[in-house]
């Protein structure tokens, strides 16, 4: 099948059984790949009410038709599962070089199912596929494991591994790859840990059939040329995502002290320009990337190195924790990566715990003696380790995420647990940015920015405006942006360089032989969006409107400092946003797709 590896690899870890089946042409037509394949298999194969950390849950890793191809940033695959953090749908996109090797091994999807009785790693070299003993790797950091397996098998092998966080089933444990790329959010690493899979090692040398070789070359090179010619390429490449840090501070979007404000008085200490001067050694890109956003950093004070930090980690482990020191943030990033926990959720959890401590809800008896004040760098390092190893009362509590932790602690701490659907909000403060607030409220994995991002749009239209156009913008982005996670390529070339997205269509057609416009692709995106929504509803009996509410902080507590001081989104506007969103989506007032909507999208039989 043109554009595909051709096979689905199924690994039954309970029985140690490995089988292959051909990729279905019908599923490829309907769901294309990546997160489309992910939700298809998740909805179809994982039984209702499955324990996310039990053997019934599955971990589904899927490439897309652009993965491993002549496409800018074509190094993306998608990891889908039922989230142990949220109890709903989760998928996380992984960059680096894993995806291309997976495609060249002839694999469109790897499905990990069941649970191994002992630690194993999955070894794939084309058709040689084995489950191997990982008892000597268990307990080691994800980076250390990658180094060890690279030495064992060679540089051409790509490795995705969990750290102790995944082994200990921290609910927001992540997958690490390429010394600094993650499938980060929603607890994908905890699911892999529950199956006792420490790592996947793979290398492939097969070719991928394409429909039109000449057209493929031309369309691929046209995209690369557009990237090369794009204004801003040098600036984005030099600073990566950290380019926005100072701007977020300036416009009140930089999460500060557990999102109690959106501007940070020590902000310059963590700005991108400070990072570039103080710690960055060189740039790093993923497979086929013309605009490398990754940065290798050297932290002289700690004598350590890391890939990063990205903006998100700077926001969540820097300003959100009251830390204005880029070396400290980078070291916290390194610890989180090696120990295998999502730095965004970890920053959210630690920020919440610090606020609990400063408000007197926690004492040192609750924190294993840690002085959990904002800005205490050593306490942050200690807490990251405690979380990853679920050590002590505080480590165990924070390993659950802020929603569950706040439910246990009570005393009003639920109001400043900054999460939606159980996932900690990523690094954009939304006290007065209604489109971005709606983006977080309705994101299909929880409070994450990857589906739609609208800070600039809020500033253009008017940050407190609650109008149908804002809602329509969010829906359009939600249907469009995740299609990059379906196709298997990075969205940052569109996001950062603003290249013409229509250039992707001839490339996709030349690879697959199927003509698709962006309208066609957005229709697939809309279908997937509704299916992920139905998954949430299927797995959670009380699922509905209440699940879409943001943290009360954003409609009850205006910041006292910074450019958004005194500003807030009214609760009635939060509800109005949801009313408009559900109406435009074709969902009922409780946020469930109507039968008519499901029929229009040809999903009725699948969700019945």
């Amino acid at each position: 099948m043109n554009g595909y590896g051709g096979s689905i690899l199924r690994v039954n870890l309970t029985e140690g059984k490995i089988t292959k089946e051909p990729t279905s042409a019908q599923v490829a037509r309907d769901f294309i790949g990546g997160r489309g394949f992910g939700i298809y298999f998740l909805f179809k194969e994982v039984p209702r009410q499955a324990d996310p950390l039990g053997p019934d849950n599955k971990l589904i890793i899927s490439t897309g038709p652009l993965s491993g191809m002549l496409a800018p940033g074509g190094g993306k695959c998608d990891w889908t599962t039922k989230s142990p953090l949220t109890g709903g749908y989760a998928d996380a996109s992984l960059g680096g070089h894993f995806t291309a090797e997976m495609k060249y091994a002839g694999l469109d999807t790897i499905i990990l199912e069941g649970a191994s009785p002992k630690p194993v790693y999955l070894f794939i070299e084309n058709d040689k596929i084995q489950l191997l003993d990982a008892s000597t790797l268990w307990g080691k950091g994800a980076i250390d494991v990658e180094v060890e397996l690279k030495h064992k098998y060679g540089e051409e092998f790509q490795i995705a591994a969990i750290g102790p966080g995944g082994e200990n089933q921290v609910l927001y444990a992540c997958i690490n790859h390429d010394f600094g790329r993650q499938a980060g959010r929603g607890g994908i690493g905890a699911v892999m840990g529950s199956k006792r899979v420490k790592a996947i090692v793979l290398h492939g040398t097969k070719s991928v059939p394409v429909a039109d070789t000449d057209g493929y070359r031309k369309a691929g090179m046209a995209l690369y040329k557009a990237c090369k010619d794009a204004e801003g390429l040098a600036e984005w490449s030099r600073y990566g995502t950290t380019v926005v840090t100072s701007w977020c501070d300036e416009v009140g979007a930089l999460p500060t002290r557990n999102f109690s404000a959106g501007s940070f008085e020590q902000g310059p200490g963590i700005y991108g320009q400070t990072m570039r001067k103080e710690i960055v050694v060189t740039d790093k890109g993923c497979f086929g990337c013309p605009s490398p956003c990754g940065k290798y950093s050297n932290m002289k004070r700690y004598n350590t190195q890391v890939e990063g930090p990205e903006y998100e980690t700077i926001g969540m482990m820097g300003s959100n924790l009251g830390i204005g020191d880029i070396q400290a943030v980078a070291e916290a990033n390194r610890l989180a990566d090696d120990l295998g926990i999502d730095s965004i959720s970890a920053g959210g959890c630690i920020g919440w715990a610090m606020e609990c401590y400063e408000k007197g809800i926690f004492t040192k008896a609750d924190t294993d003696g840690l002085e959990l004040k904002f800005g205490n760098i050593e306490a942050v390092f200690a807490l990251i380790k405690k979380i990853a190893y679920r050590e002590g009362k505080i480590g165990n509590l924070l390993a659950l995420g802020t929603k569950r932790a706040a439910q246990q602690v009570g005393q009003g701490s639920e109001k400043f647990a900054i999460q939606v659907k159980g996932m900690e909000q990523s690094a954009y403060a939304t006290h007065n940015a209604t489109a971005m607030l709606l983006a977080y409220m309705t994101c299909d994995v929880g409070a994450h920015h990857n589906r739609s991002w609208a800070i600039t749009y809020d500033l253009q239209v008017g940050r407190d405006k609650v109008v149908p156009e804002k809602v329509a913008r969010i829906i359009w982005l939600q249907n469009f942006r995740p299609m990059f996670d379906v196709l298997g390529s990075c969205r940052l070339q569109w996001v950062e360089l603003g290249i013409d997205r229509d250039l992707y269509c001839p490339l996709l057609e030349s690879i697959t032989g199927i003509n698709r416009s962006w309208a066609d692709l957005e229709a697939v995106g809309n279908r997937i969006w509704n299916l992920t929504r139905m998954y949430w509803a299927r797995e959670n009996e009380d699922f509905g409107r209440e699940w879409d509410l943001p943290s009360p902080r954003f409609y009850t507590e205006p910041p006292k400092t910074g450019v958004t001081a005194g500003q807030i989104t009214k609760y009635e506007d939060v509800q109005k946003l949801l009313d408009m969103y559900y109406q435009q989506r074709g969902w009922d007032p409780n946020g469930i797709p109507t039968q008519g909507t499901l029929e229009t999208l040809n999903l009725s039989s699948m969700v019945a």
Partner: protein
Amino acid sequence: MTATIRPLGILKTYIGELKETSVDAGRSIRETIIQIGINPDLVAGVFVNDEQQTKDYILQDGDIVKLLAVIGGG
């Protein structure tokens, strides 16, 4: 004593296709871009002679300032 302001990429469409402009040095980038009709909130990246700066940077003679917007976020 002049500097050059050069909007990049999509930012140009936000500000009415404003092209490269020569401005007086000696004032902050924020003051300068407001005066030439650019909403500073829409400018996410300011690069002076290829190094990122904040909008509080005081323009020097001969500076080349590139301005970047963010359309899609992370």
